[in-house]
């Protein structure tokens, strides 16, 4: 067994176990779990069954990609861009909510002070 195969199999197995543990602890949803599990299984397969790479080669060439690595890099970048967009959108939404909470706290804390000022004025 080549060194890369041992590394890929080991890494895939450890990550698959961690992913299963996350599912058992209900920290991941079924869809999210399935996607990660598929990825780790593919990593294990690349390590243990080198022929799997050739199967991937046919599949990626059918999609118009020259080699599986082209497929992986191209789609990884696309997925990263999409994820970034969703994250930025989510951060903006959370920022808006945090701002509203900060303002709510500030306005409510001043209630007593304003009442005191009004009393002083009277």
């Amino acid at each position: 067994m080549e060194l890369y195969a041992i590394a890929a199999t080991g890494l895939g197995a450890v990550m698959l176990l961690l992913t299963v543990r996350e599912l058992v602890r209900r920290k991941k949803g079924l869809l999210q779990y399935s996607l990660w599990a598929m990825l780790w299984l593919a990593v294990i397969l690349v390590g243990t069954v080198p022929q799997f790479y050739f199967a991937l080669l046919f599949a990626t060439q059918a999609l118009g990609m020259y080699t599986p690595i082209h497929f992986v890099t191209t789609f990884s970048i696309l997925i990263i861009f999409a994820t970034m967009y969703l994250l930025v959108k989510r951060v903006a939404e959370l920022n808006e909510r945090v701002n509203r909470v900060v303002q709510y706290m500030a306005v409510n804390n001043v209630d007593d002070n304003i009442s005191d000022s009004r009393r002083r004025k009277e």
Partner: protein
Amino acid sequence: MVLVVDDDSQDHTVELSRKAGATVIRHVLRLGTGGALSTGFRAALKADFEAFVTMDGDGQHNPNEIPVVLDPILKHEADIVIGSRLLKQSESMPLFKRIANRILSIVTSFASGTKITDSQSGFRVYRRKVLEYAIHGAWDYRWASEILVQAAKADFRIKEAPITAIYLPKRQRGAGVKDGLKILHSMIKRPENPQASCKAKPKA
């Protein structure tokens, strides 16, 4: 009553303001100038006052000029009075700021349908009914134009009074090019912020 909104400042604003007898509202996180203003408006509306004067916290405005901006409100000639830095002595404003302010004021005037010479001035007076009708939704510098457009669309009367501005040699913060572009973009694309809280306009 003097209300100071401390937008998570790192200096001695809170202690000094309290010592001077002001009521202080604190943000636990920095929200921006628009956020500080809207917090101040929401808090001030809880008190029983008919008019609200706003001033920036950078020492740019002279409190002795409050009677000048308050006068049209007392004479029932306006619902909002803007202390305009460009109606007199406009040379004191740095050239770059003057040009940017002029462009933003033209765009704001166009969006609101009211002639405004200094749309970015923070020295203003609002009649209570204006703030009961609408408080801007922007957290940043866009608030200045946004609230004017909202008020003008609801037929509140906007007037300007000449003020002098004090430009200190070392200013810590202020609107920059990015803020100017954001204001310009919002005025062209969507002058009335859907995040703003607008209620039914009270009868005059």
